[in-house]
């Protein structure tokens, strides 16, 4: 009897295939991972995507540039502001429109608030994936305040549609500055709680330290961007290297670690929350006066040519590539979405670890599935 058990454990052909997803609580969306297991050890992962493919790139070819905004909202719904910003920056770059400082500053504040709420949700769901239900409630409780700020100014909570080519849809609400300041004051008090509950927790540390290490070399060759890459020591922050909007006026640190394991991918996001708050604090009192939108032509037509714009979303680098043939619709639109590229490294990271670690690794890469499929 004992001998038989050993045969199963050593025979490499005896692989057990498990479908994780498409409906699985830890994938936060419709991602299907076909996992080959030997015992509890992950041998191979085959991600299957396309369950929420809406053809956004193709739809963009038949609509005008201001209308693209409402589709980019729905790609990475946690970084909707940054996604919209990429379209606006590209159109403004192509038409050589000068954008007043007021718009740039408001866009930067909104982007950083977006990043903050995205990382709060990451903290909440990552804690829940690893078995800490409390994190989920606390994370969402604090995120609610940012969503209220969004709702008051833009009218939407997640699907904001606030940026538009040439500026902003509306001016900021009179309460905006007060609410943001109140939130930062509140969240500076609450952030140490996050560390007490999750970061210092011994179970959490044991489950994340040393799990799924990503070397700098691999981060570069797999094209990983965002906090996941910065945890491996790859300096890839678009806000630093190619500043857009008002990022050249603010001082913030690029959070860099060298270990690159699941714990440091978590810490990179945790520290980025503090950096985002610093950025907002520098700008919130110095919003310059001026118009909230530049008058654009009623029908926006880009000159013939190819355009590229990249922005830093909460999950990494979003690249937007547009070919225009001079019409009001783009000829071809391509999004280089960070989540799709980051998914590619999952097999490399989780191979050889246990299936419970796969949840931690996938959680630490912080996937948003609609951004992968588009």
């Amino acid at each position: 009897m004992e001998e038989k058990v050993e045969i199963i454990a050593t025979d490499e052909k005896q692989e057990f295939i498990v479908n994780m997803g498409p409906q699985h609580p830890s994938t936060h969306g419709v991602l299907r991972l076909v996992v080959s297991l030997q015992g509890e050890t992950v041998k191979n992962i085959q991600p299957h995507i396309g369950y929420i493919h809406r053809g956004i790139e193709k739809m963009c070819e038949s609509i005008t540039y201001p209308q693209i905004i409402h589709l980019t909202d729905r790609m990475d719904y946690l970084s909707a502001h940054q996604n919209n910003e990429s379209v606006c920056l590209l159109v403004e770059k192509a038409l050589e429109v000068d954008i007043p400082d007021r718009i740039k500053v408001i866009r930067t504040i909104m982007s950083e608030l977006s990043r903050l709420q995205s990382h709060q949700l990451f903290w909440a769901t990552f804690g829940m994936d690893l078995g800490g239900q409390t994190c989920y409630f606390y994370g969402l409780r604090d995120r609610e305040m940012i969503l209220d700020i969004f709702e008051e100014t833009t009218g939407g909570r997640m699907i904001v549609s606030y940026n538009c080519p040439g500026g902003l849809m509306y001016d900021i609400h009179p309460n905006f500055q007060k609410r943001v300041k109140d939130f930062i004051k509140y969240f500076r008090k609450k952030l140490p709680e996050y560390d007490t509950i999750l970061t210092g927790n011994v179970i959490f540390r044991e489950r994340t330290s040393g799990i799924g290490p990503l070397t700098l070399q691999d981060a570069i060759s797999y094209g990983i961007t965002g906090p996941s890459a910065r945890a491996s020591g790859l300096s890839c922050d678009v806000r630093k290297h190619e500043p857009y909007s008002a990022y050249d006026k603010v001082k913030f640190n690029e959070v860099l670690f060298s270990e690159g394991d699941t714990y440091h991918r978590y810490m990179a996001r945790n520290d980025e929350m503090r950096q985002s708050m610093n950025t907002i604090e520098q700008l919130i009192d110095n919003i310059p006066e001026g118009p909230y939108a530049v008058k654009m032509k009623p029908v926006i037509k880009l000159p013939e040519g190819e355009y590229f714009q990249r922005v830093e979303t909460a999950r990494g680098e979003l690249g937007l590539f547009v070919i225009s043939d001079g019409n009001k619709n783009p000829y071809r639109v391509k999004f280089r979405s960070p989540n799709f590229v980051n998914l590619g490294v999952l097999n490399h990271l989780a191979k050889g670890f246990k299936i419970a670690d796969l949840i931690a690794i996938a959680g630490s890469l912080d996937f948003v599935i609609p951004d992968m499929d588009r």
Partner: protein
Amino acid sequence: MRSIIEYLKEIFNGVLSLLRGMRVTAGYFFRPSEIVTQKYPNNRKDLVMFERFKGEVVMPHNESNEHKCTGCGICEINCPNGTIEVISKTIVTEDGKKKRAIDRHIYRLGMCTFCALCVKTCPSNALAFSQKFEHAVFDRASLIKQLNKPGSQLMKGVE
């Protein structure tokens, strides 16, 4: 011997970290004023949405049943997914001139993505967002709405 002490220290620190976390959660147990949960269906009466909240597109009418929509169709052109359909008619004004006016302004709530392009681009500010957010209905047909009220007319002074 040394390793045993370290082992025990590890266990002690581990338990301590759990207790520290529990102190935070237990703290909320004694501070019920910090609970933020809203009891939604019960607080419906005093639940006020923000004034810019994008609930649904409406066409404000004044007391004498007049609206500002001229039937130009710019909202229909700007809508990215065919939510709005403007059906216009030709009317004869008092001084005998032929003029374009709105017959029916159809709004399909089930298709709307709340991008606010129609409200923003309307040249006569005829459209607005209401704060209504409870849109659930039993029949899909009731999501197709006519925004101009029956018998309504164009407000005087709006071209």
